[in-house]
């Protein structure tokens, strides 16, 4: 029995791990029934995998049996893998016992599709319901909605789950239909707008009647796989922008394609495109927290993110006319756009300058990365650089330091042989500024 459950867990955790989301934030569920758990605070990463990703939830599939054959998915019907399925009680037991030991914030449950969408969805809902009603579990529950599941089931799911998600899977409808013949955008966007509508309705109702039960209080998210299909970064962030604005999503997750299949329709990559994924997350942050428009980050003339420099620096280099910005007088919004200044230091700057004009020394102590910021700021009217450099020179100086081009090239070559790239790949927690503990949703 124990061996069997261990085997099931290994198969069904393994099959679920490519879903990037592990966020447990944005919930408002208090423990007011004397039961177990509390999901009202910020999210917590209880552990980190050896690839540096946050482990916040017990992220598993109910089963990896699937009637679909999506080329990018390990659990596709035609793939020769071990299959397993949990019972409802097994999932409940694991969740409760992991939670009691402070291993997890809650459950993230998804599933392969067996017999039908509704049949599968009904099982997922039954587990959430049992946890809430029978076990008095107030931890976090994230349910994946199964494409094609009925409106009634999604409605019920939202009553027990903190967060719902429908994966958009790939950055364009064309690609999706090519790689996942059973799926299309229309079928994915329908439940998405349905959830959006229910969340909005629920919010209005709760303003009138406090006792109305919450519907998915932590909202909805989605994920798409990057690097398995030919879309440009510009297309991808435009899509994300549309999802944020049109469907009120809390997060869009980007998952660098990890080769899970020898399917001829897919690129035969060896390494997942981690740097590209990282730059996409940085762009996503710029849109959500730094007031950038998708079209400011990229445009048809610049359809791809620069892998060498972050998108904020890339934008600043293309817009030298806006700089230098004086840190003692500029608005917060503009200070946020200075390379080398993150949200935290921007906030400190605008708070502290009310007391006394700031000096360079202050900026340094506030955590501003002067190595980058120096080309873009003035401080009490003074520039840090005696000369004005052109775009290419600034870029080179920031990347390789002040040395000659020749030594810069040598350094660059050495970098190529650096053992482990310090790529930030914990999308749930890490902002580009390494804001480790604010789990923004």
């Amino acid at each position, binding site marked *: 029995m124990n061996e069997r459950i261990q085997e099931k867990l290994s*198969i069904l955790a393994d099959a679920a791990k490519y879903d990037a989301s592990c966020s447990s934030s944005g919930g408002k569920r208090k423990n007011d029934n004397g039961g177990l758990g509390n999901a009202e605070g910020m999210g917590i990463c209880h*552990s980190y995998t050896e690839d*540096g990703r946050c482990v916040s939830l017990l992220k598993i599939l109910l089963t990896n049996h699937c009637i679909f054959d999506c080329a990018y998915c390990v659990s596709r019907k035609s793939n020769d893998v071990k299959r397993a399925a949990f019972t409802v009680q097994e999932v409940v037991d694991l969740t409760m016992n992991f939670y009691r030991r*402070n291993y997890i914030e809650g459950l993230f449950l998804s599933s392969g599709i067996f017999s039908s969408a509704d049949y599968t969805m009904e099982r997922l809902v039954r587990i959430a319901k049992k946890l809430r009603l029978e076990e008095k579990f107030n931890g976090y529950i994230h349910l994946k909605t199964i494409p094609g599941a009925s409106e009634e089931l999604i409605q019920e799911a939202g009553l027990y789950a903190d967060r719902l998600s429908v994966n958009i899977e790939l950055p364009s409808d064309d690609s999706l239909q090519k790689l996942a013949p059973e799926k299309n955008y229309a079928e994915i966007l329908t439940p998405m707008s349905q959830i959006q509508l229910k969340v909005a309705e629920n919010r209005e109702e709760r303003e009138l009647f406090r006792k109305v039960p919450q519907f998915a209080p932590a909202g909805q998210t989605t994920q798409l796989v990057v690097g398995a299909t030919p879309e440009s970064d510009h297309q991808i962030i435009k899509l994300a922008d549309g999802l944020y604005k049109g469907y009120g999503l809390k997060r869009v997750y980007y998952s660098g394609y990890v080769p899970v299949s020898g399917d001829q329709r897919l690129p035969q990559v060896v390494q997942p495109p981690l740097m590209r994924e990282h730059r996409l997350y940085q762009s996503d942050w710029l849109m959500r927290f730094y007031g950038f428009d998708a079209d400011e980050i990229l445009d048809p003339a610049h359809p791809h993110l620069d892998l060498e420099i972050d998108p904020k620096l890339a934008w600043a280099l293309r817009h030298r006319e806006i700089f230098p910005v004086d840190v003692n007088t500029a608005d917060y919004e503009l200070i946020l756009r200075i390379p080398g200044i993150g949200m935290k230091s921007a906030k400190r700057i605008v708070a*502290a300058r009310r007391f006394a004009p700031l000096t360079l020394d202050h900026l340094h102590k506030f955590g501003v990365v002067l190595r980058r910021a120096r080309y873009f700021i003035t401080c009490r009217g003074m520039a840090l650089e005696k000369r004005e450099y052109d775009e290419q020179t600034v870029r080179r100086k920031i990347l390789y330091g002040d040395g000659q081009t020749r030594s810069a090239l040598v350094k660059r070559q050495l970098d190529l042989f650096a053992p482990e790239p*310090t790529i930030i790949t914990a999308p749930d927690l890490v902002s580009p500024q390494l804001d*480790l503990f604010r789990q923004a949703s």
Partner: protein
Amino acid sequence: MQRHAPGLPAAVPITALRRPGELPPSFRSSGRFTYDGSFDGLLTVVLACWEQRLWPEAIQPEGAAQGGLFAETQHIETDEERARRVWDGLLRHMPGEARTSLYKTFLSERPDRELLIFRYVQLAIEAGGQDISENFGNDTVRLVADINKQLFREKHRMEAFVRFEKSHDGLFHATVEPDFDVLPLIAEHFTKRYADQRWLIFDRRRGYGLYYDLQRTDILSFDAASDAPRSGSAVSAAVLDEREPLFQTLWQTYFDHVNIPERRNLKLHRRHMPKRYWRFLTEKQPRERRFEPIQNKNNAA
């Protein structure tokens, strides 16, 4: 024992900010003080400084005190009633949040914490009603803010990295060794969250713990380390719940399988989960059985 992150100055010579002869008008001279090391004790010292109009050159816990050459040191007895007066009075000079940040500064256990707190209070009083907590250009204010950030991070790590073990009598217990004295800060979090189970979190380094008995959470002290009822790996398997080893194994299994080897990045892994926490993490303990990856790739391209 490292008490603070490398980014911050270890100890700022606070007294150097005020040279002799440059004392604020309300102080006639300076003095050195010792106290019992408790927060109430420190607040009592603060009141004594005001009453005697002495600018503190040093405030140190008894025993840890290093007397300066020729320096006379005054010992101040802790008085809860007088400490309460100071604590309540602080609100006339600063918002509640700033006052809390001073308590957290105390929990940082930095050797200069007492003077830093005194200095902050003095700044707030001199500011005459203006809230100074965002005056980050000032070294004292910024240092208090940075220390608070560190405290918050350690508190958050404890909320994440505590690993309970269930014993046969239903008690869930965990051992920790936080960098700062953060147990008082995590009590509320665990009390709300684990309302339906008895639990104990023991700080082995400081020899005390939090115990929740289904009604309320109390601080339990243990005089000697040997008195600690259960200290992490020292718990013998005999007192564990019979299903405890199963769930530990399952958690390890989960941890191993949720990893994506193609994305391996140990540097990032260690940055998020520094090695000094590993000894108490179930997922970082040796495996009973070797990890076997699931072969679910169709490599016949």
